[in-house]
């Protein structure tokens, strides 16, 4: 679903690259955490997926399509296939919950009847039934984030990117949000979540990709926030926490898989 091939992103020629020759593959329907300290390149990764920035070198594939080859007037189409959630919710303060979610459908020209049918359904999925007519400031932080998630998935994107969605929330509320994201993932949406929240990562036991200074230093399935296995030297060959055979972080086997699938998933 998302594939990075040797991707380097340099913002400033004099500084070190924000991402340095990243190779990564995230499959359709997968749930992946992107962890690492601030400045490790998590946000840059998400921006490259959205084509907010272009990679300095290497190729970014989203749904089998190299984003560098998407012309600027087709970028909206790419973004319709990707939902995004932020730490600061980014709701429209003067619009109700319903209107905030409906906004995402209005601006891409969905008909009013479709909106009337879809929005309550999505609000139910994120657990906000009966709060359609509230304004954002009348809701708790967790509820606001649920509205943001509802807005991100209301157009049924294949990918959901979450940039520290629990950063402003207390642990209990955060777990609620994770439940929502997990449910969305169960419905087949690929979820990539950048986070600092070790409790959540440890609780969820999903794939963890750890970045440090723009380099992937760990890529484990069903992993914890911090690696159980100490990293030796610069080697990226890591053992799975479960004790299975070491699994290379590189892509080769997965690459063919994506290409085969790409044919079947034309629109996304």
């Amino acid at each position: 679903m998302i594939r990075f091939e040797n991707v380097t992103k340099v913002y400033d020629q004099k500084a070190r690259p924000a991402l340095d020759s990243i190779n990564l593959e995230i499959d359709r329907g997968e749930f992946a955490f992107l962890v690492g300290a601030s400045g490790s390149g998590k946000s840059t990764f998400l921006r490259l997926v959205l084509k907010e920035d272009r990679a300095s070198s290497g190729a970014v594939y989203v749904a089998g399509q190299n984003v560098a080859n998407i012309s600027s007037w087709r970028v909206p189409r790419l973004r319709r296939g990707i939902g995004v959630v932020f730490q600061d919710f980014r709701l429209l303060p003067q619009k109700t919950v319903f209107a905030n979610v409906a906004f995402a459908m209005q601006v891409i020209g969905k008909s009013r009847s479709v909106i009337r049918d879809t929005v309550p359904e999505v609000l139910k999925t994120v657990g906000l039934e009966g709060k359609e007519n509230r304004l954002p400031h009348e809701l708790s932080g967790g509820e606001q984030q649920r509205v943001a998630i509802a807005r991100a998935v209301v157009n049924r994107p294949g990918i959901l990117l979450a940039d520290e969605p629990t950063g402003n929330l207390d642990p209990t509320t955060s777990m609620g949000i994770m439940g929502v994201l997990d449910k969305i993932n169960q419905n087949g949406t690929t979820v990539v979540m950048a986070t600092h929240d070790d409790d959540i990562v440890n609780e969820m036991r999903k794939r963890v990709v750890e970045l440090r200074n723009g380099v992937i230093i760990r890529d484990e399935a069903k992993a914890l926030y911090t690696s159980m296995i100490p990293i030796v030297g610069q080697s990226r060959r890591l053992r799975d926490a479960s004790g299975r055979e070491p699994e290379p972080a590189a892509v080769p086997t997965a690459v063919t898989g994506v290409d085969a699938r790409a044919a079947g998933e034309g629109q996304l």
Partner: protein
Amino acid sequence: MRLQFVLAEIGSGLRRNLSMVVSVILVTFVSLTFVGAAGMLQLQINQMKGYWYDKVQVAIFLCSDGSTAAGCATGPATPEQQDNLAKLLESPAVAQYVNDFQFESKDDAYKHFKEQFSNSPIVDSVTPDQLPASFRINMKDPEKYQIISETFSSQAGVETVIDQRQLLERLFSVMNAASLVAVSVAGVMIVCAILLIATTIRLSAFSRRRETGIMRLVGASKIVIQLPFILEGVIAAVIGAALASATLWAVAHFFLGGYLSQQYPDTAFISAAQTLILAPALIGLGVLLAGVSSLLTLRRYLRV
């Protein structure tokens, strides 16, 4: 749905930015009024040309008692000289430029003079002898005056050849200068309008950056994001242009059609309806101004 959405966005944008919108309306109103005034002057010039050029004549004045011109060395024009001139006017070389001509004797001239200055005491001090006889020539093409002038100035018994059109040309050149001034003022005002529209759009884009940010994220097309801003500027400019058109119409109707045509009943003024020809042009210009300046602004301040 999308149209309704765009309209709602425009509405909220106009409300939020009301003072800026009003200033855009006023600036486009003033600038387009000047553009329109220049257009009106040109219309008026054309109108007067059409009206007067049919009537104005080339006059060949014959020598009279006091004439000092070279052709009048022999004293007042004799009847033979007068016949010669009439023959020359009928000859093919000249006749091809002439519609018709008539002879105005001293007595006729005196009669016309009395009519023209009936209110003036000067009439009492003038006698028929003081007025020269003349040939009044109606040209096929008034522009060909030079030919007549060259042919007849050197003839015996001719004092001078006068093109009445030249008197009008002087008036027209004043009007042309006035319309040039109007256009220059309009040019400055248009620059103002463009800058103001750009600033307004910028403010508007800034005050709605949350919405546009979300629109980008959920994949709204460039048109849906930018159109409300562009249309905001365009609507303001169109209102300004409409006000300018209404002002020009009012000037034509109440000032030209009312006051001036009473003062100068024998002058052909443009009618109020004629100024409405300018309205589509002004509105088009307003749309162009707003459209271009907002497109350029959005390219810089509203990334999509």
